């Protein structure tokens, strides 16, 4: 037996029945009694215990892992409402899953280490290839969490991750781990065995305006830029266009998504993007990962063509790594910011990627509010970072 893939999707208004319908669709393609692993991406409200019961009865999965998302990415389209189920059966690919609950209440670095090691314990595979991680990352210094993963897995180990949040607020985050629906958690899927694996990430955003210097930053909080409160960075560009919250603090919201901050780490290297997720009363900007004092920062602007080119480049990278063989399954973790820019043409991106990798390539993915991936490709695995506004392609063959 090689590797069998089954993908199902449903939008029925009853979440339990939707899960059942999607499981049946996946099962009909799989045509095998037991799934080695099931990956689920679902929009708000579509994960229910009754649904998981149907799933278990129909697919009899050995392992289940999943995350909430603002939209599910499928082979032919993007759906803003519903539940998508991917079932895999394989002799070649091995899997291990794990979960860490109450992420906010525990030290993030420690949680990362525990998650990595728990997945390894569950998987017990001789040859590890990659680690997928879905987590509630809003307003956390997720760099610490990622560092913990690295410590548990190894510095040169391929990690791809996605923040599973629906509205940018922690209140709408959940992940699935076997029969449990976990709020404020991180779940991990270790992949190994004889299969090929490839990873690539790009963003396509371009710097705009003059560079500024981060004069003071502490972990994931930027305090001063060009010796002024960090929020002046946005106020300079957007002045009156910045919406205000009730307490008159600027609400960066959509503007932060469309115009992230681009951190220049080293000249010649791609920019590391950061969404501002909160503005503090003193004008400091909170990001989702670490920012260093002394780094240069640009306002970044995303144009449709550049974003599409980035997706194309990421797909081309995968193709090169796969020596032009089509992958068995392609995962896409894509920033919700890209969907905002691409608008109705967002679905064309899937076709663009499939044009490069093969029109019959099964695609399964989710939109995210933050990603973990190397900036570039697997060759730059040591540069894996928590980042924003990017598209991450992970292929298994």
């Amino acid at each position: 037996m090689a590797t069998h893939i089954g993908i199902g999707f449903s939008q029925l208004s009853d979440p339990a029945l939707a899960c059942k319908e999607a499981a049946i669709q996946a099962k009909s393609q799989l045509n095998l009694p037991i799934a080695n692993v099931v990956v689920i991406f679902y929009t708000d409200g579509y994960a229910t215990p009754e649904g998981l019961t149907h799933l278990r009865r129909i697919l009899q999965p050995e392992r289940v892992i999943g995350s909430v998302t603002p939209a599910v990415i499928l082979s032919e389209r993007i759906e803003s409402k519903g539940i998508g189920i991917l079932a895999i059966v394989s002799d070649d690919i091995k899997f291990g899953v794990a979960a860490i609950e109450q992420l906010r209440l525990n030290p993030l670095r420690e949680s990362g280490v525990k998650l990595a090691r728990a997945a390894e314990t569950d998987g017990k595979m001789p040859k590890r290839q990659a680690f997928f991680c879905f987590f509630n990352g809003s307003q956390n210094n997720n760099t610490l969490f990622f560092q913990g993963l690295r410590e548990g897995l190894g510095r040169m180990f391929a990690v791809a991750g996605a923040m599973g949040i629906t509205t940018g607020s922690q209140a709408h985050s959940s992940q699935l781990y076997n029969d449990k629906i976990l709020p404020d958690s991180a779940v991990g899927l270790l992949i190994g065995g004889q299969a090929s694996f490839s990873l690539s990430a790009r963003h396509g955003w371009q710097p705009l305006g003059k560079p500024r210097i981060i004069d003071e930053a502490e972990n994931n909080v930027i305090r001063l830029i060009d010796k002024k409160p960090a929020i002046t960075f946005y106020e300079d560009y957007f002045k009156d266009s910045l919406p205000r919250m009730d307490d008159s603090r600027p609400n960066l919201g959509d503007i932060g998504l469309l115009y992230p901050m681009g951190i220049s780490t080293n000249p010649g290297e791609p920019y590391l993007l950061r969404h501002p997720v909160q503005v503090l009363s003193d004008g400091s900007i909170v990001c989702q990962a670490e920012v260093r004092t002394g780094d240069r920062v640009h306002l970044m602007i995303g144009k449709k063509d550049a974003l599409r080119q980035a997706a194309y480049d990421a797909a081309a990278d995968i193709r090169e790594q796969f020596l032009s063989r089509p992958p068995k399954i392609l995962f896409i973790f894509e920033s919700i910011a890209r969907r905002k820019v691409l608008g109705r043409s967002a679905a064309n991106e899937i076709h663009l990627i499939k044009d490069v990798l093969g029109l019959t390539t099964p695609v399964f993915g989710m939109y995210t509010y933050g990603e973990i991936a190397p900036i570039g490709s697997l060759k730059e695995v040591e540069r894996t970072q928590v980042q924003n506004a990017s598209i991450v392609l992970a292929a298994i063959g």
Partner: protein
Amino acid sequence: MNGVAYPVSSFDLTPLLTFVSLVLAAVSGILLYIYVGKSEEYRELKAAYDKIMLAFHELDEQAKLIVKTDLELNKAQEELDRRLTGLNTLQKLARKMSMTLDENEIFQRIDKELATELGFARACIFTLNEEGFFAARVSIGIEQAKVEAAVKQLALDVNFTSALKSGQTFSSLNASQKTKTLVSQILDTEHFVLSPLLTQRGLAGFIIFGNRYQAPPVTEGDEELIGILASQLAQGLENTQLFEQVYRSSQMLETKVNERTKELSHALKAVEEISKKKSEFISAVSHELRTPLTSIKGYASILMTGKVGEIPEPVRERLAKINTHSDNLVKLINDLLDISRIESGRVEMNTTPHQMKPQLDTIADLLTPQLTTKGVNLVINIPADTPPLEIDTSQVDRVFINLIGNAIKFTPAKGTITVSAHTNWDKQEVLFEVADTGIGIKKEDLVKIFDEFFRVDNEINMSVKGTGLGLALAKNIVEAHYGRMWVTSDVGVGTTFHFTLPLQHKPRETKKSKLPTMEL
């Protein structure tokens, strides 16, 4: 040194000092030169730096313009996407609505999912009921009690009702402050779009879609979308109402048709029953009459032969009259029997092919005495290419004899009777016409001319006795041959009887007995 002391005052330091001064001057010069050079370089560097910073600043200012434009473009794109999504949603809704003609099902299509796809969390649809009050048909995101209270208050607001009647869509963008406050208070919806449902009969209701204050304000695009939705709904409602009317009318019509059909069916049965009974009566009476008539005629004949004894002449005359009247009675009875049997389908036409010209010549010979006595001319005009007809010769003879006989009766002396034939190959029939230049028949009598026992009220009929059965019998015989008979006439000009006979006779399905005649 050897310990020799030299007094200081004896040495000259001037050369040394001069040398040192020269060296210092040279060093100072060099340092000055270096300083001036570096200052120049520094100035150049600073100028370049300032230039770069100015360029950065200008670049940044341009970047701000770019960002501002880009932001506006993004907003426009987002609005466009929203409109396109909304139009797509409305198109799907239109397709669903077109699949039903049930009013309730139409309203069921307006659900939370639709409202969300259009970008709204709350929605209400009200329609005017038969009493002229608004009633809620759909309520999304608003408590039912609030909805019911809302509609009462809204109906009382003059501004609101006049805005509705204007037929225009309006929203929180352009509604009067009073209306905005009212809607906000009663429906808890600060941003709203309201559109009337207009049918051919006028205002049928209204729809309102809205969001609370935290949501973005509505746009002109939202007004357009809700306006389109209202049109679709109104159209859908109108279609269902029309369908309902048509359906009810067709149900009523069907019921009436069924009732009338039943009535007609009963009436037909009754008529058939009556007709049957009439025929049976006639048949029975005729048979009953024939027996005594046979005796009367027989005895009269015997007496006239003188076998019983010599008959005086006056008695002989009277016996002759008894014979004549008996013959007339026999003819009447036979005609009645013929009509009765033909009507009841108990007579089969024994058809064989016949050329009409020779047959009519024979009939003309038969009627020559009457024609000569009356002084009327008979013209037989049968074209040579008239095809032979499959007819029952004896029966068809009776038709011609009857028609020509009537024509002779009603045509004055020196008049003309014309018998003609025209072949219609398309219809596979021959049209015969017996036309006279007689007294004509009044219009009001034409419709009854073929009725049994009917005789036109004129001097000739008053003076000449008849049964009034001849034309009825002739028509029956023609129809038994699957032909048609009709009459045209002008008073004082003449009358023409028309009848058709098919080229080929189609036999009836049931076997019938030969028509008996009474031979006396």
